[in-house]
């Protein structure tokens, strides 16, 4: 038993459960056939009688006052049912949900009112019979602008109070604070070596293939708003969205539909929801607003982190890390509606897998004339992973030590778990050296190092990079407010509820309350978890999805929480059903309930397996034979269960300790071998290995799918994808012609391995794994490029490492 020293609660070190029937097997996904047949029915596929279509008029300017909006010509166009300006919209709907600091000083509206703050911001919406007609009329909306000086560079904007994105804020810095955890000053003063680094992670975005979409149906009689949406934020926290629409929270029904990918980009999606709701309120008819790619890239509220880092790592002369300083400026764009949560995610694992005893985190969140940030797989923790791995690589080079060995030297050791890092977050379990050794083995590190030298002797620029990274999972609500000394509310709930109903035949149906599907196998996970409890085939489980109306508490997906939370909720509901079934079986068998045990799909008397009631018979009795039930039981066999966050501790008042808020800590080691072509600046991946530890695996093939897909996205972040704004705030990469999504030719074939260090705080020891891959690949690719170009002393400081940037780095070193 290990004891958590601060709460005195004991967290046992656990073994992976050994008697599992379904968990751990790569079963075929239960949801796939309908998608393979083209029957998935995404929200864009849906239609309703009398449905109208919305198109948004967008600003061509990054920063301009709106002098006038003339909609008369547009309103006269064929098929047009309404044209609503930003000012008119502000009379009908309220600002969008905004969990940022001081939202009243940077008000986020569905359409701009007084001035536009980025290219693509909506100024009016046209509602017409078809999208074609709406787009025709959009061109006839006449907007008069007075252009203002553009605020493009966050490093200039943070010091400039003469030109503001939001006048009411009085500054372009939306949030600023320095957090200090432990004796940073002392550790730096005592250090033998201080390594410094300066990095820039450029803007990109998830760009799921399906864009955000919503269909709103407003019932003027009842005041009820039905919202068909592919948002993944269909939760019991949707009262904020209801308020934006000016409908009562119990009269907003968000109906979930599958989304063609998310990776964070379907998180919130308030803008499409309120655009559709606005149209529905004005016209009284169903209104669909489906973003096209241009809508989504320009105005989808989903750009990624855009961070400028200054880092310092303090260590001893033999390479033992002592302290780590982060000073980060993040370019949030024009609004900050999710607050600085992406930095909370960073602080959950800011010291990586290393024994670093103190750390400092200075954050300045700056507003500029760009589209606002949202969520992208990793939610800011992937950027922090890249940052610390960059400086660790720099340290290895400075010490002239193998990067794998420097990491090994500094790992938190298996017997130190559960382990509190300096920020206060808990790492529940891990064995980082085992993952490293597995990865080195999988990659054939020694062999490949020899091969690399052989290739380099031929004049080829071949390099190998390695990273050891954390993957935090299962967030707690404390990360919403620990930023502030006087938060509005110190909330602590991030629940997930399920409803489980057994029919008279003993067949199971589970209702999940957040969202149906966005590529994450939620149906399969739920089916496998139930199969484990009830000894049935996962393909036989019925699954449906509750909307928000009458829904159970649910916080929805995000932060790789859902499989862990479903496991807890399903286990709980299954336990309640089994308790009732046990009592009914006891009655059927004329036995004492305490003498019964569950075995292979039924209850039987311990030691007398022939005296047995099958679950189907118990279910039939529960439904059809009320007189045969124990007196205090009613007919039927159903249960709900709400599972709360498994391990939250409160932040300290002075925020020198943020508490445990992201405790289910996965880990991975990635190795990449690349060749850089100095003629073109292009990078070719020669070999790639990834070994992950996400605790107990539920469906290894699905997890591998997440790892490979996430790694492909990470490689794209490292080499290809960037949202480029020029100094006038014009977005230059507005289509897939310019935003370079990788094809099968650009991504590596992965060698994959797994370790399973179970979580001691979750059912079955599961940890989240949904953001895997993208949290590691950027660092591995950067390190491999460095190594390939070592004689030019290249250190990758900017991602993506485009051919231009690579040739520029090589040129700088060659010229100096």
């Amino acid at each position, binding site marked *: 038993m290990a004891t958590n020293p601060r709460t005195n609660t004991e967290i046992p070190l656990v073994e992976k459960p050994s008697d599992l029937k379904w968990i751990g097997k790569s079963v075929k996904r239960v949801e796939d056939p309908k998608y*393979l047949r083209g*029957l998935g029915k995404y929200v864009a596929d849906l239609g309703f009688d009398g449905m109208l279509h919305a198109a948004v008029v967008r600003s061509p300017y990054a920063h301009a006052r709106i002098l006038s909006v003339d909609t008369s010509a547009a309103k006269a166009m064929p098929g047009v049912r309404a044209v609503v300006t930003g000012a008119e919209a502000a009379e009908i709907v309220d600002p969008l949900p905004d969990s940022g600091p001081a939202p009243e000083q940077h008000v986020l509206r569905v359409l701009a009112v007084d001035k536009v703050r980025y290219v693509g911001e909506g100024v009016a919406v046209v509602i017409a019979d078809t999208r074609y007609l709406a787009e025709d009329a959009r061109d006839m909306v006449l907007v008069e602008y007075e252009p203002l000086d553009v605020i493009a560079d966050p490093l200039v904007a943070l010091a400039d109070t003469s030109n503001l994105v939001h006048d009411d804020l009085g500054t372009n810095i939306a949030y600023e604070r320095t957090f200090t955890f432990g004796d940073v000053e002392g550790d730096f003063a005592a250090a033998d070596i201080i390594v410094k680094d300066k990095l820039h992670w450029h803007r990109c975005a998830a760009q799921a293939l399906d864009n955000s979409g919503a269909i709103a149906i407003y019932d003027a009689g009842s005041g009820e708003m039905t919202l068909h949406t592919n948002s993944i934020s269909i939760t019991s926290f949707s009262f904020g969205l209801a308020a934006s629409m000016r409908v009562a929270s119990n009269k907003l029904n968000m109906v979930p539909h599958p989304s063609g990918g998310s990776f964070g980009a379907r998180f919130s999606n308030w803008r499409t929801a309120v655009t559709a709701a606005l149209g529905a309120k004005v016209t009284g008819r169903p209104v669909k607003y489906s973003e096209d*790619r241009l809508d989504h890239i320009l105005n989808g509220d989903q750009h990624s982190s855009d961070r400028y880092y200054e880092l310092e790592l303090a260590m001893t002369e033999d390479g033992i890390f002592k302290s780590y300083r982060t000073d980060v400026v993040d370019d949030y764009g024009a609004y900050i509606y999710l607050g600085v949560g992406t930095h909370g995610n960073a602080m959950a694992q800011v010291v990586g897998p290393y024994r670093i005893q103190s750390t400092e985190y200075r954050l300045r969140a700056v507003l500029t004339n760009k589209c606002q940030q949202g969520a992208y797989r990793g939610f800011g923790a992937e950027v922090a992973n890249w940052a610390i791995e960059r400086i660790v690589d720099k340290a290895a080079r400075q010490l002239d030590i193998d990067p794998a060995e420097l990491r090994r030297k500094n790992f938190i050791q298996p017997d130190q778990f559960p382990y509190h890092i300096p920020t206060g977050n808990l790492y529940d379990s891990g064995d980082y050296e085992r993952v490293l050794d597995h990865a080195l083995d999988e990659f054939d590190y020694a062999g490949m190092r020899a091969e690399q030298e052989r290739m380099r002797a031929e004049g080829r620029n071949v390099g190998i990079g390695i990273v050891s990274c954390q993957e935090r999972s299962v967030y707690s609500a404390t990360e919403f407010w620990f930023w502030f000394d006087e938060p509005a509310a110190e909330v602590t709930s991030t629940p997930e509820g399920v409803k489980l109903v057994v029919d008279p035949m003993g067949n199971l149906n589970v209702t999940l309350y957040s969202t149906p*599907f966005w590529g994450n196998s939620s149906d399969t996970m739920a089916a496998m978890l139930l199969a484990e409890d009830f000894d049935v085939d996962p393909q036989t489980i019925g699954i449906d999805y509750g909307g928000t109306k009458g829904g159970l508490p649910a916080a929805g997906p995000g932060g790789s929480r859902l499989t862990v939370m479903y496991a807890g909720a399903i286990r709980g509901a299954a336990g309640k059903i089994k308790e009732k079934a046990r009592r009914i079986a006891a009655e059927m068998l004329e036995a004492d309930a305490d003498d019964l045990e569950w075995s292979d799909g039924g209850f039987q008397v311990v030691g007398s397996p022939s005296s047995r009631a099958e679950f189907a018979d118990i279910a039939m009795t529960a439904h059809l034979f009320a007189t045969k039930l124990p007196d205090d039981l009613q007919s039927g066999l159903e249960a709900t269960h709400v599972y709360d966050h498994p391990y939250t501790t409160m932040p300290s008042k002075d925020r020198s300790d943020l508490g445990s808020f992201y405790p289910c800590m996965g880990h991975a080691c990635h190795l990449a071998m690349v060749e850089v072509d100095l003629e073109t600046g292009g990078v070719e991946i020669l070999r790639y290995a990834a070994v992950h530890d996400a605790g107990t695996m539920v469906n290894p093939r699905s997890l591998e*799918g997440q790892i490979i*897909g996430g790694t492909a996205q990470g490689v794209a972040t490292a080499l290809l994808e960037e949202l480029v704004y020029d100094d006038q705030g014009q977005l230059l990469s507005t289509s897939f012609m310019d935003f370079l999504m990788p094809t099968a*030719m650009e991504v590596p074939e992965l060698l994959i391995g797994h370790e399973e260090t179970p979580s001691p705080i979750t059912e079955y020891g599961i940890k989240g794994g949904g953001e895997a891959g993208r949290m590691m690949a950027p660092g591995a690719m950067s390190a491999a490029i460095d190594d390939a170009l070592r004689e030019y002393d290249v250190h990758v400081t900017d991602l993506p490492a485009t051919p231009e940037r690579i040739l520029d780095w090589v040129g700088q070193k060659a010229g100096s």
Partner: protein
Amino acid sequence: MSDAPSRRTIELTVNGERHEVEVEPRKLLADVLRQDLGLTGLNLGCSHGVCGSCTVLLDGATARSCILFAVQADGAEITTIEGIAPSNEEMHPIQEAFWEQQGLQCGYCTPGMVLRTVELLRENPDPTREEVREGIASNLCRCTGYQFIVDSVIDAAARLREGEPDGHVRPLIGAEEAGSEDDHANPAPAAHP
């Protein structure tokens, strides 16, 4: 533009069924298939002809329905993802292989990937992994990182080569038109409206 656009009647044979549809000349084939014929299996990802989510087989060859006007397809035979499976009980071997290998996650690119695989395996029934990667590089997938799609295509190729249990090799959809795919294959991209 002030006058209501003129409409034209076109004839499309979709999944073996003949349709006469009255369309505006500017209406995209993707929208006619999705909105007029209710075939929502194909998806719109980029609307620029880049991602391939809108792929259909047009006279046997893959085509991007998001950058084709429906009038350009007048008289064509079209196969969409809904027309691939032999029945409601049985899936096509390519669909089976994608299921077995988890060659999909969110399913959005899947109709296009499956139809591209039909074409790819018709041209090369026994491809290497590298040939598969090159072959499917026409279509973007944001979820899978492609590796399990490559597994799926290799698996599908084996299933198709082995044929049915009775020894009959199932003909691929569109195979009969393989020799006459010039008329409508890869027409010049139209401007985005």
